[in-house]
Structure formats: C-alpha cells, structure tokens
C-alpha cells in the first residue's frame, strides 16, 4: 500500500483515532453518535498506522513525499542547545557517561564520536553567539536515511548535562488503566518512537547534512 501521509499527520491521526475510540467506549452518548465516533476513530487509527489515506489518493495529494523539516519531529531531536559553555560540555563528554555510553574524542575537543546501534555518529560542539550556551549536533556519514530510535534521546543528554538527571515518571502510581489505557501506556511510546525513528529524511536534508559534514571537514583542516 503506497504511503501518502506525512509522519506528523500519521502521529496526529493515531492520537485523534485513539481519543475518538476512547471517547466512544467511555461515553454515555446514544449508540448512533457512538457508531459515528467509533468509525471515525478506527479510520484515523488505520490512516495513522498504515500511512495511507484513500481521500488523499483520490485528490492526488501526497504529504509523505513532501515530508519536510517542519513536519518531521525527529529532525529537531538530533541537535540540542545546552545551557552550558562549550568548555563545560566538552568536559562532561570527556569525563561522564551519557545515555548511549561514553563518547570518545574524534579530532579535537569540539568533535566526538560514539557508536549507537551499530552506526558511528559524530557529535559536534559549537559555541552559541551569547557565549553561554553550546549547540550540539549529532550527524552520521552513512547513506542510510533511517534514524535509530536511541538517537532521539539527545534531549536526555541535554537534561543530564544541565540538571544531572533525566526526568522520569517510571514506576509512579496510577489507578486502574482499563484495556485502552493499558494499550496506550504499553505501546504509545513505542509507536511514537517507531514513527519518528523510521522516517525517511528528505533529499534536501541529506544535502544539508552533507554540507554540514563538509563544513566540519573544513574546520577540522583549519584546526589541524
């Protein structure tokens, strides 16, 4: 089945579909209303999970192909602005363990490398123009356009650097979830991460990253 729905829309469809089904099963509305909301819920869920929309197909719309930077959440998740100066970020990377293990110095104190899920990633630091913050970017050199799920955890690295810990609600108390709540609790994050991590990057983004790599190369040469 040809995909024609952008990732952002797929995630939104899953959320809307889940919400509609939840409301269908839990509300006291008349059966006629519940049948409409239930059908809509299933349709949205199907659209989100498969990434295929027959209405789009009949109108010759394909937002999957047009999946741009603004519609692809994972693109935002592979860089982070750390509220620490570059020296402190570099010191952290050289001395502390991160969510992915330890980084090793690649070329200089501004370039590190790490193996994540079998791929070698480069982490590049650059000082923000305010002098107080550091932009970190994770890039990789393979042509493969899949983003490993664990790379999305760059926000955890930022949190660890800034606060010394990672926000968590694991194991906290809650009441009876019921079947729908249990489903979303168990599979919600997995579904979200799966959609994000398997998004194909648009060609323009690849070009951009090639350019970034090229710029990095030039800076490395300049350092040398």
């Amino acid at each position, binding site marked *: 089945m040809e995909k024609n729905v952008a990732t952002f829309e797929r995630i939104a469809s899953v959320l809307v579909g889940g919400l509609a089904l939840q409301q269908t099963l839990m509300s006291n509305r008349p059966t006629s209303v519940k049948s409409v909301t239930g059908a809509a819920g299933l349709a949205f869920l199907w659209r989100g999970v498969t990434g295929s929309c027959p209405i789009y197909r009949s109108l010759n719309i394909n937002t999957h192909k047009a999946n741009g930077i603004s519609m692809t959440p994972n693109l935002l998740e592979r860089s982070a602005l750390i509220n620490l100066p570059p020296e402190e970020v570099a010191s952290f990377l050289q001395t502390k363990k991160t969510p992915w293990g330890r980084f090793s110095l690649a070329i200089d104190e501004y370039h590190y490398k790490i193996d994540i899920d079998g791929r070698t990633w480069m982490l590049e630091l650059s000082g923000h123009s305010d002098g107080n913050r550091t932009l970190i970017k994770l890039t990789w050199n393979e042509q493969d356009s899949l983003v490993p799920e664990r790379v999305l955890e760059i926000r955890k690295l930022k949190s660890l650097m800034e606060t*010394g810990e990672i926000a968590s609600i694991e194991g906290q108390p809650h009441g009876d*979830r019921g079947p729908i709540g249990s489903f979303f609790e168990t599979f919600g994050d997995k579904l979200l991460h799966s959609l994000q991590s398997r998004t194909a990057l648009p060609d323009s983004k690849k070009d951009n990253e090639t350019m970034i790599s090229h710029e990095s190369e030039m800076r490395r040469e300049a350092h040398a």
Partner: protein
Amino acid sequence: MKALTWQGIDKVGIEQVADPKIINGSDAIIKVTSTAICGSDLHLYGGRVPTLLKGDILGHEFMGEVVETGRNVKNLKVGDKVVVPFNIACGHCYFCEKGMFSACDNSNPNPSIPLMGTGQAVSALFGYTHMCGGYAGGQAEFVRVPYADIGPLKVPSGIDDEQVLFLSDIFPTGYMAAENCEIEPGDTVAVWGAGPVGQFAARSAFMLGAGRVFVIDRFPERLELARQCGAEPINYELEDVYETLQFETGGTGPDSCIDAVGMEGHGHTIDALMDDVKAAFRIQPDRAHALRQAIRCVRKAGIVSVPGVYIGLIDKLNFGMAFNKGIKFKMGQTHTHKYMKPLLDRIMNGEIDPSVVISHRLKLDDAPAGYKMFQEKSHECTKIVMHI
C-alpha cells in the same frame, strides 16, 4: 494511598493506588495536607485535553509536609511545610535561569508529544495529561515532587493552609495576568471570568495600580465576590459587554483586557453557538468567545492578557481586528516559581486574603461530587478545597 483518578468523560473516582517513591535524587515526597480543584481540572474532567489516560491521578494545586527527600535535595528537610507550584521546572535550563519556568526544557519526560503539538516542548505539569509530562497529581494522600530544591516554597508552619494553598497556581496566575497588562496608575482593566483566576486577576490589577476594574461573568455570587474587592461587575446575560465597556470608558475601551475564561467560553452569539456545536462533536475543543470579545473591547494599542487555558486551534478569531487596533497579546502558563515568594510576602503583610475565593471545603473522598458540583457551577460553587 488514596488518590483521585480520572475514569472517563465526566467521571472521576477515589482509588487505592501504590505510594509514590523517590525516582531521581532531586525528588521529594510530600504528604498532602490540602489540595484544590482548579478550573483547568474541569477541562480534564470533561475529556477535552488529549493524552489523559484512565487511572491518571489529577490535581496540580496542593501543599503539604515533606516526608522524604532524595539524596541531592539540599533546601528541604523532612517536616517542612511547603506549597508546590503546579508546573515542574528544573531550575538549570536557559528558560528557568531567565525566570521563564513554564518553558522549562528538561522537566517533561514525554517531550515528543508537545513537540509535535506546539513546536517546542514546554514544562511538565502535575496531574495534567501525558503530553504535559504524565506526572501523578496532588489530589492524593502523597505526591512525588521532582526538582524539589527548585519548586516547593517553604511556608511558616503556623500559617493556615487556606492562606497559602493558592500560591500553587491561581494566585500567581491571576497576578501574572495582571502584570502582563503593564498597568499604569489609574488604568482601566476588564477581566472576563469571575472564577478564582479572574478574582485574583482583578485583585492583582488593583495591587498594581489599576483605577477601575470591570469583571464580566453571569453568576451573581461570583460577580458579588468581585464587587467586594472594588471591581465593577458586568453580567453578560443582562448587559451588552461591548456597549457597557465603551460607554464606561468614553468610547475608548479598557486599557487592557484579561481573558480568564479560556477554552470553555460561553456566550449567546453566533460564534459561541458554532463553537458549542464543534465542541459537542469533539471537532474543536476551544470555545474562544471571551477572547474574541476581549479583542473587540480593548482600546487601540491595548493589551489582551490570556491566563485562560487554550489547547488547540481557534477559528473565527478576529485577528484582523487585533492587527488594525495594534493590540499586544501576552499569555501562557504561569511562571509560578517566580511569583510565589513575593506573593507570600503580600499575604503575610495582610494585603490580600486568598481564602475569600473558597466556597466549599470537602474531604478527598468527596472529590468526585466536588468535580460534578464545580462543573455544573451549582450550590454557588466558586472554589473547592479538600483537606486531607
């Protein structure tokens, strides 16, 4: 422990759940002594905010006694009496260091969901859906508080809970709404909504130098409460709000308008009717009648301040009107941490008695009935506090 959980649309209940435990070194466990139902809890109660799950513990206005601290907590000790801000902030990110605590970068463990909805992930909140972090709320006997050195405000042990409980949310929220109005001495301010936030916004506007404050609502007991602080009530079921405000200001309009209603606005005009239909079919959760009216009423180059909660897309927004009048908008979740200490000082100085907004005092076991009463605005319900 006992906790109030969301069970479905318009349904909450008391359940026996596990006690909270320390997860991170900066956590503290608080034994809740008092908690309140907020107007924004009603958005959850009605199932209007996505990513709330059955069994989630609600409640973001609470205070209590510290019973356990994580290994990294330095500012609190067991036995301290604290009020806890409703939003959770790390205290170390760029936004926290600038005093913009509700924009905290690090407190939300589920940033992917708000990232898609709002472009950037904002801070987590207690008991307010998984897109806002999924943290268990404080309508329970115990609650885990992350970043305990940053959020909780120690209060004198002898002070009555009802004097300080609202530092957790509605007092700072009303105050920030008024502060956002950039009030100059003698200014005229109009406040939509005479609920608890509207009451504090009106009182804060006077504190900040407003000369006249109008409060707009339809419930007589709430308007009477506003009148008691010196505000001039407008019952929109009896008067035309625009005409009244223009008449009272010589055709100029209020210098600033505060929308303390938010997404569940009510009205009798066509826009409000269309909002009601969409909300009934869950097509659009936000009913922005009060916001549209505030934009129409405010003076040219005035300010519209929005403490009322909105979560989604709004159609029929008179943005062209706002543009042509040169209106400034200020809004957002409250940077509660920033306001708690200065407002505690105002309470201790006797400048304000926050407990005036309380209409009902219940036990936690009675919370489900309290939610129903608050939603229906029956029994002249303005604010419900539960002592545990």
